Every structure is written in structure tokens, then in C-alpha cells.
């Protein structure tokens, strides 16, 4: 095949400006990589989750009761739409681990002897399933075992139904049901303080007096079954056995958290890369427009030979496609790799036993399409402009622009400007559009940096507000069942306890009009202070009203209610009372969608004497050890949550994971910054090589002409800094607005240091680019430049 001369020109020209091709390629690649990374991660996690759930038969419905006789099982199985059923015993127990002072809780789940349950199967990671023959066999969830360095053959002590029992670890496992192993009331997984244990069904039933009975059931539904209807019928069946409201898979605790995390990732995956891609497309467009514009005389020449406008356009289209191709290859490689890194990180976080990853082809198609379109448009504009001129004019450089003598040059302030600086300022003013575009490009990359870096500020603010201003307790104790409030006195007398407050949390459905939200009501004393109702908007504690509800704004918005409206509340525990309550106040929260009411009113509603399920405690640090030791012995305790541990796990999991994502984006933003700065300086050199060489001939030093060239780019970049910061703020606002899940709202906070860091990075990118271009300026061939025709 004969390669046409024009095509050779494309290849050789690309090779000739390979530095620039690479720099523009980086800009293109950053946008492409961002989208591929995000969408690939998202798709991979979606597929992995589905595959995991499918393979290990994660249930569609979950329900709990106090004690349901085994005979109910067949009645549940007979409900229309039910494909398979798994009944089991499920309890919380305290674990005593040597060398670990703080109390540890575990949820014990029963499994059939020596075989996998029908639903919610275990992924055995080591050892085997527990068997009936030996009543002390237990399988631990892997993260918990690892957190305490427990292995098959080790022994642990559990307080089961008030009795201390020594258990032998026969295996470690994972389960789709406990991807997020959350202790009662906890918001973050804490593998040190909360674990899952699987024990043989009959053994566990015997320990909890549940022989011939079960207290938990999980269902697998037929395709197309009406989940809502199954839930209602299941609730009705279990009602008399102390049922506490069946949940569909989407509301199951672990899955809800996984889905929320995915949702959060989805938002990030759509917004951030979109912003990136748009910015990268804009920069590609701008840079290629300028690059092709420097080819003006060659375009004129080709036209003089009789090449048509279309042929010339096609030639530059190939040129541009070449550059985008380079960028795409880099972008696909980097994006695919980053996506894998990111997916691996999430897989480890979720402890998925499998990982399905392939780079997202739709992301590739979208990203490359957008980049290519932007690039082609940019070059088409420049080619069109050059090709529209008669070739005779195109072949000579544009006529010198009209420099008007401005009055500003006569002012005293202007007089100290040396010739070099005057050239800089005049050049900027001469091509205001080009200067503006350069500034916009730089602003965009700074804006992206601010957007990426400010996440840490927002999360720090969130943590500070939520954990330090909004909470003051050291520990929250969960009780196995509601106890009379008199129990508070017992806790008050424990060693080191400085203050005690009761708290109740009951599952409830909230409805207003057609909308129903499944959540919970938290009951607090009017003057609660340890874990009070805290309004993030005013950063003040709101007293629990005598009657009525205090709703988080997200819940209020979901229900479409405001202060003075009423909400229908259906409690899902005890006698399942239903009541219409007025909305007494709204509060802003960053985490979850809480609803509060007065604990006394809640108890009255439940027709119970003053009682509590949780105890908030303030503890004297000096007596902590003695306090923990006592707590471990209390049979009523089903959960212990330490604020300090919650803060640690908040930082360990959420912040760390988001930070990985953000770091990747910051790196891409840096790539964009370098790409823009380098190209701006490099193209300016192509555009003005002759002028600069002339100045050299006239006796200007290398330093002086570098100053003239780089000073212009530098001045524009400095001028762009404040706009970049503003843009960053705008983008962050956009992101914060979009980034709202039921689990999290991110407050918009940007510390001064974030602006500072972004600016520093942008300036560093500029300096590096300037040094690269300076090298070229130093090697400017004076004779060559002057010999060629102007």
C-alpha cells in the first residue's frame, strides 16, 4: 500500500511535536481516565455484588420474632411467591477476648449441622462449618478473626444467655448477609468490637431456649413475586410471635449500607468525571485550535497546490485524531488500571470473595467520543479560519494587530515597566480572547484541584460536627430488651460513670400522603445532652419536644412535610401502635435520616412504663478499665458502642476510601494542569519564535526573551488563580448538592489551605512546563528562524 505524502506528513508532524502531543494527550487522557476509572469501578462493583449475592444465595426478605414455633415455617413457605425459606436462631452475645480491654459484641447466627444453609450461605475462608456432635464449635467472620488474630483451633469466651462458654474456632467465613458487619446502632463497621459467629442450629437453640422454634427467617422469592405483599403476609404470620417487621433486601442493614456506598460512588462517578471530561474537552479544543492556527501558512500552501478545503480539513482531522489516539491509549491504560486499583480497594473494604472486573466499554466510547468531538471542533475552527483566507494571505503571517496607544502607558505607574514587561502586557491585551482562554484553562485545572482536595475539609468538618459537637457520650450500651428506667441507677453506680442518659430506638414506618419511609424513632429525654438532638444548621442542641416529632430535613423533604404538618407513624415493635404525630421541628443532619421524639411520649405510645433500650454514658477515663471489666459481666448488655471507636472507624474506612478516590482525581487534575501550562507556553513559542529570535539578534539575552515568553504565560496563570479558586468553589457546591444519599450529606467546607495547596500545585506545574519550554528558548536557532519567510 502506498502511503500518501500527506499521511506521511501527519505521522512525521506528530512525531516532531511529540512533547506537545504527549502534553495534549495527557489532557485528553485525564478526562478519559477519570470516566473509565469511575464507570469501570461502578460496573465492576455492581456485577461483583450481584454475582456474590447470587452465588451465595443472599435472601430477598428478612424477618425477626421473639420465638416462633417451627410449625410456622411451613406456613411461611406456603406464602405465594416464596421459593425457599431458611429459619434460624439469631442472638447478640458479649465476647471476652484476652488482651482486649473493651467489650466486644457478636451476633450469633445458627447454621445447620455440617452443611450450608439454604439461604445466606457462608463463604468458608478457612476450616469448616460447625457440627452438631461438638457443641462448642464456632465459625467467625473473617474480618473479626483477623482483627483479633484468631485462627482455626483458637478458643474464645462468649457470654451466651448469661453463661460463660468457651468456644473452639473451627473455621472463618464471609457472608453476603454481613458484607457490612454492623453492631446495633453503629454507623461504621468496626471489626475489632463487633463480629459475626456461626454456630450449629440445635446447639444455639438449646442455649437460648429456642428448641423447636426460631427467631429469624430469611426468604428467597420467585422472580416477579410481589415483595410488599410477602412482607405484609409475613408480618401478619409473625405478629403473634413477637415479630418486629420484615425487611426487603433493599432495607437489610448490610445491603443498605453497601447500596448507599455504591450510590455515593455512583454520584462521584458521574459528577467528577463529567466535570473532568468537560474541562478536558474544553482544554483539548482550545489547545488544538491554537496548535492548528500556527499551521496557517502550511494550510495556505496546500491550498495553493490545489488541495480543497475538505482535503486540508481531513488532513488536520487525521492529525488531531492522532493526538486524541495517543491520549486515548494513555487514558484507557491509566483509567483501566486505576479502576482496577479502586475496585480492588472496594472489594477489600467489602471483603467480596470474588472480583469481576473489566474496563467499561461504554465509558471508553463516551469518553473518546467526547474528547474526539472537542478536538475535531477545535481544529476545524482553526482550519476553517485559515482555509477561508485566500492562500496568498494565509501563507503570510497575520497582519500585525493594531496596537493602540493607550492612555495607561502615559501614567506614572506604567513608566517603571521595562520594554520586556511592556511587550508582555501589550501581547496579552492584543489577543484578549486567547489570553482569556488560557486563563480559563488554568482556572479549570485549579478548580478541579480545589474540588478534589476540599473533600478532606468537608469530611473533617462533618466528623468534627457529628462526633464532637453533636455527641458527648463516651459509650452507648445496648440492652437485650427494653428495661425499666430504674436500670439507669445501676449503670450510674458502675465504676467511673459520670453521667447516664436513657435512649430508645424503635423501628417505624413514617407516612405522609402516598410516601412511606422505613426508619426508626429515637426517644430522648427533654434535656438530653450526651447524645442529643443536634441541629447542624445552627450547631445547637434542640430539646426533645413534649409531643411531636423532630425530623431531619432529608426525611422531611422525602415525606414532603414541614413544621406543623402531621406524619403517620407505625411502630414496628411491641403492640405495633400507629399514631399521627405533628412535626414539631426540623433539624439539619449530615448522617442518616433521623426522627426524634420525647422518650416519655414514646414509652406512653408503646404502652410501657418508663423504660429504655440504650444507655448513654459519660465515663471517667481513669476508671475505664474497671468499667469495661464490669460491663463484660452484665448479662443484659447486647451492644457496646464507643464514640472513640466510631470516630476511628469513620476515619479508617470512609475517609480513607474517599481519599484514595480523591487522590486519584487530584493526580488527574495535576496532569491537566501540566498539560495546559506546557501547551500554552509551547504554542506561544511556536507563534512567536521569529519575534523572539529577532529580539535575540537585537541583543536581548536568553533570560530576557524567556521572561517575555514565559512572563506572559506566567502572568496569565497568576491572574487565573483567583478565578480558579472561585470555579473550584462553584464545582464543589455542585458536587455537594449532587452528593446526597440518605446516609450522608457532605457539608461544603473549603479551608484556606486547600486553596493554597491547589495554587501551589498549579504553580509547580507551571514552573515545570516553563523549564521545559525555557530549554527550547535557549536552543532557538537564530539564523534558521530569521531565514524563513515571514
Amino acid at each position, binding site marked *: 500500500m502506498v502511503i500518501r505524502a500527506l499521511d*506521511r506528513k501527519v505521522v512525521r508532524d506528530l512525531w516532531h511535536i511529540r512533547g506537545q502531543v504527549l502534553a495534549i494527550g495527557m489532557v485528553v487522557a485525564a478526562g478519559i481516565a477519570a470516566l473509565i476509572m469511575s464507570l469501570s469501578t461502578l460496573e465492576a462493583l455492581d456485577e461483583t455484588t450481584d454475582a456474590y449475592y447470587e452465588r451465595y444465595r443472599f435472601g430477598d426478605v428478612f424477618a425477626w420474632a421473639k420465638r416462633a414455633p417451627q410449625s410456622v415455617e411451613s406456613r411461611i413457605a406456603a406464602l405465594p411467591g416464596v421459593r425457599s425459606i431458611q429459619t434460624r436462631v439469631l442472638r447478640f452475645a458479649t465476647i471476652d477476648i484476652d488482651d482486649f480491654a473493651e467489650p466486644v459484641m457478636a451476633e450469633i447466627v445458627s447454621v445447620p449441622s455440617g452443611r450450608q444453609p439454604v439461604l445466606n450461605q457462608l463463604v468458608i475462608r478457612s476450616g469448616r462449618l460447625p457440627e452438631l456432635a461438638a457443641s462448642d464449635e464456632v465459625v467467625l467472620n473473617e474480618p473479626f478473626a483477623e482483627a483479633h488474630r484468631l485462627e482455626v483451633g483458637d478458643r474464645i469466651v462468649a457470654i451466651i444467655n448469661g453463661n460463660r462458654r468457651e468456644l473452639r474456632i473451627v473455621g472463618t467465613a464471609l457472608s453476603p448477609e454481613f458484607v457490612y458487619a454492623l453492631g446495633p446502632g453503629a454507623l461504621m463497621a468496626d471489626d475489632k468490637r463487633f463480629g459475626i459467629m456461626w454456630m450449629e442450629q440445635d446447639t444455639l437453640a438449646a442455649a437460648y431456649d429456642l428448641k423447636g422454634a426460631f427467631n429469624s427467617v430469611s426468604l428467597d422469592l420467585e422472580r416477579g413475586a410481589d415483595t410488599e405483599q410477602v412482607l405484609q403476609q409475613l408480618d401478619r404470620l409473625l405478629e403473634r410471635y413477637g415479630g418486629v417487621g420484615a425487611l426487603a433486601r433493599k432495607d437489610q442493614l448490610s445491603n443498605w449500607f453497601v447500596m448507599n456506598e455504591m450510590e455515593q460512588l455512583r454520584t462521584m462517578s458521574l459528577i467528577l468525571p463529567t466535570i473532568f471530561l468537560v474541562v478536558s474537552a474544553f482544554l483539548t479544543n482550545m489547545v488544538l485550535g491554537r496548535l492548528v492556527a500556527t499551521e496557517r501558512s502550511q494550510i495556505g*500552501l496546500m491550498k495553493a*497546490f490545489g488541495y480543497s478545503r475538505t482535503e486540508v480539513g481531513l488532513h488536520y482531522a487525521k492529525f488531531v485524531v492522532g493526538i486524541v489516539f495517543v491520549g486515548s491509549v494513555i487514558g484507557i491504560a491509566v483509567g483501566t488500571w486505576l479502576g482496577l486499583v479502586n475496585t480492588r480497594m472496594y472489594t477489600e473494604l467489602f471483603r467480596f470473595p470474588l472480583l469481576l472486573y473489566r474496563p467499561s466499554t461504554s465509558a471508553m466510547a463516551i469518553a473518546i467520543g467526547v474528547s474526539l468531538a472537542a478536538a475535531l471542533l477545535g481544529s476545524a475552527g482553526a482550519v476553517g479560519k485559515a482555509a477561508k483566507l*485566500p492562500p496568498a494571505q494565509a501563507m503570510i503571517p497575520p497582519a500585525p494587530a493594531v496596537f493602540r496607544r493607550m492612555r495607561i502607558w502615559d501614567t506614572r505607574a506604567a513608566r517603571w515597566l521595562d520594554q520586556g514587561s511592556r511587550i508582555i502586557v501589550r501581547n496579552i491585551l492584543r489577543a484578549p480572547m486567547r489570553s482569556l482562554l488560557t486563563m480559563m484553562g488554568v482556572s479549570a485545572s485549579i478548580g478541579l484541584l480545589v474540588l478534589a482536595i476540599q473533600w478532606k475539609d468537608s469530611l473533617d468538618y462533618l466528623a468534627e460536627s457529628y462526633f464532637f459537637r453533636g455527641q458527648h457520650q463516651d459509650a452507648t450500651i445496648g440492652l437485650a430488651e427494653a428495661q425499666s428506667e430504674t436500670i439507669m441507677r445501676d449503670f450510674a453506680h458502675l465504676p467511673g460513670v459520670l453521667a447516664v442518659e436513657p435512649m430508645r430506638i424503635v423501628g417505624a414506618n413514617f407516612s405522609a400522603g402516598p410516601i412511606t419511609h422505613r426508619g426508626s424513632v429515637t426517644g430522648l429525654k427533654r434535656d438530653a445532652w450526651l447524645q442529643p438532638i443536634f441541629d447542624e444548621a445552627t450547631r445547637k442542641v434542640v430539646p426533645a419536644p413534649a409531643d411531636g416529632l423532630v425530623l431531619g430535613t432529608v426525611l422531611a423533604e422525602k415525606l414532603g412535610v414541614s413544621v406543623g404538618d402531621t406524619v403517620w407513624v407505625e411502630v414496628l415493635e411491641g403492640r405495633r401502635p400507629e399514631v399521627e404525630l405533628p412535626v414539631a421541628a426540623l433539624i439539619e443532619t449530615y448522617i442518616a435520616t433521623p426522627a426524634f421524639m420525647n422518650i416519655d411520649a414514646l414509652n406512653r405510645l408503646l404502652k410501657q412504663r418508663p423504660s429504655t433500650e440504650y444507655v448513654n454514658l459519660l465515663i471517667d477515663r481513669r476508671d475505664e478499665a474497671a468499667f469495661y471489666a464490669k460491663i463484660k459481666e452484665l448479662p443484659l448488655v447486647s451492644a457496646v458502642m464507643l464514640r472513640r471507636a466510631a470516630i476511628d472507624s469513620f476515619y479508617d474506612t470512609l475517609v480513607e476510601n474517599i481519599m484514595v478516590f480523591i487522590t486519584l482525581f487530584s493526580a488527574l487534575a495535576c496532569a491537566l494542569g501540566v498539560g495546559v501550562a506546557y501547551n500554552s507556553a509551547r504554542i506561544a513559542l511556536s507563534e512567536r519564535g521569529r519575534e523572539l529570535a529577532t529580539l535575540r539578534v537585537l541583543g536581548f539575552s536568553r533570560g530576557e526573551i524567556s521572561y517575555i515568553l514565559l512572563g506572559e504565560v506566567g502572568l496569565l496563570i497568576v491572574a487565573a488563580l483567583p478565578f480558579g479558586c472561585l470555579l473550584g468553589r462553584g464545582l464543589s457546591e455542585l458536587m455537594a448538592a449532587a452528593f446526597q444519599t440518605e446516609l450522608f450529606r457532605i457539608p461544603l467546607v473549603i479551608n484556606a489551605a486547600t486553596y493554597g495547596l491547589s495554587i501551589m500545585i498549579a504553580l509547580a506545574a507551571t514552573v515545570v512546563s516553563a523549564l521545559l519550554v525555557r530549554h527550547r528558548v535557549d536552543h532557538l536557532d537564530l539564523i534558521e528562524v530569521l531565514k524563513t519567510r515571514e
Partner: protein
Amino acid sequence: MTANEQKTAMATTLAARDLTKVYRTGEIEVHALRGVDIDFYEGELIVILGPSGSGKSTLLNIIGGLDTPTSGSVRFRDHELTGADESELTRFRRDHVGFVFQFYNLIPSLTAEENVALVTEIAKRPLPPAEALGIVGLSERRHHFPAQLSGGEQQRVAIARAIAKQPELLLCDEPTGALDSKTGILVLEAINQVNRELGTTTAVITHNTVIGSMADRVLHMADGKVAGIDENRERRPAAELAW
């Protein structure tokens, strides 16, 4: 036959009538041509002489379809170029005109042969690029890039590029302007050879009056007008020129 009779007997390749051209650069109006009439005859070599700013390049650009006149008409054989649109002018240049520029205007990323191929690939009945380079005596250097060639060699590549399509009209704008006299003569010899061997109507712009003696006719331009036309009884060989 008198010279005049001879002229009428010769076919006219191109006829320009009352050409004017006004450039507007910023706020300034420049009248580059102020009513020029000129005929180019089949196979003749015409040298256009004149100082800088006399309008020679503008005239050549308009004749070659690189630019359009502000008023007046240009006729190439049976085609009226006046009022031709962009694509008609492109076709005219592609099929009929070869250009040689003062600064060669080679594509730096293409070899000598590829620079010629750039034109032959879109021509109707081109010479093979190697043959065109042979005519200007550069067969040996055909795989060299422009940066590896001397100024004279580059200009000869440019001539090879211009003639490879076998144009009816060869327009040379100061082809020796950037060259020393020895090299310049080599280039002029090449142009002369093409004109004689291929019978291409050739116009050469220069401000070097010596070159005028190698032409059939010399057109003097000044201030955007034709100041006079001289006819040479005899064309002097380029090799005899000296400046």
C-alpha cells in the same frame, strides 16, 4: 512575420483586464493594483520586474488564483476566473498552475520526493516525482529532508514540485531572492529548461533586472500599474547571466 503578427498567431494562455486590488490592513487602505492589463502567451517566458510594493506579487497571486481581485477580470483559456468560487479556484490551481515561492515553502516533515508527491497525488497527468526531480538535477537527493538540502537545492525541489503536475502555467515569485547568484543561476536554468522542454507558460517575478534578458518579454511594474513591456529579440541563456 512581424513580431506583432507572430504574437497574434500565438494563443493566449491567460488574459487579465483592468485588475485592481485594495488591501485593508487595520485602518490603512493599500492600493496594490490600479488597473492592470496583461496577456500571457502560450509557451512564453515572461519576467515581471519592479521594485518592492509595485504590485508584482499581488498580480501573480491573482493570476494564479491564490487571491481574488477587487475588480477587473482574469480569463484562463476558456475559463473566466473572475467571480469563480473557492472550489473553482482550487480546481484551477490543482489542474493548471504550478507555483514556486521565494522561500521554497517545502513541508519540512516530508522528503524531497514526498514534497513532490504531495502535488502529483492530486494531479491529473503528473510526471513521476523521481522524473521531476531528475529534470532539476536532484535525483540523488530525493530522499533528503528540506533541512538536509541547501537553499538552491530546496528551491529546485520547489520547482520540481511545481512542474511535476505538468501545469500550463508556472508562476515563480522571486525564485532566486533568497539565493546567492551562483545558486540563483542554477535555479533559473532549471526554470528555463522546463519552459523550453515542456512548453509551460512561465512567469517569473524578480526585482533583479539582469534576469529580464532571459525572457521573451519583460513586464515592468511600478506603483500598481504596468509601466511598460519590453520584448527581447533573443533570450539569453541563464548560464550567461551575472549579477
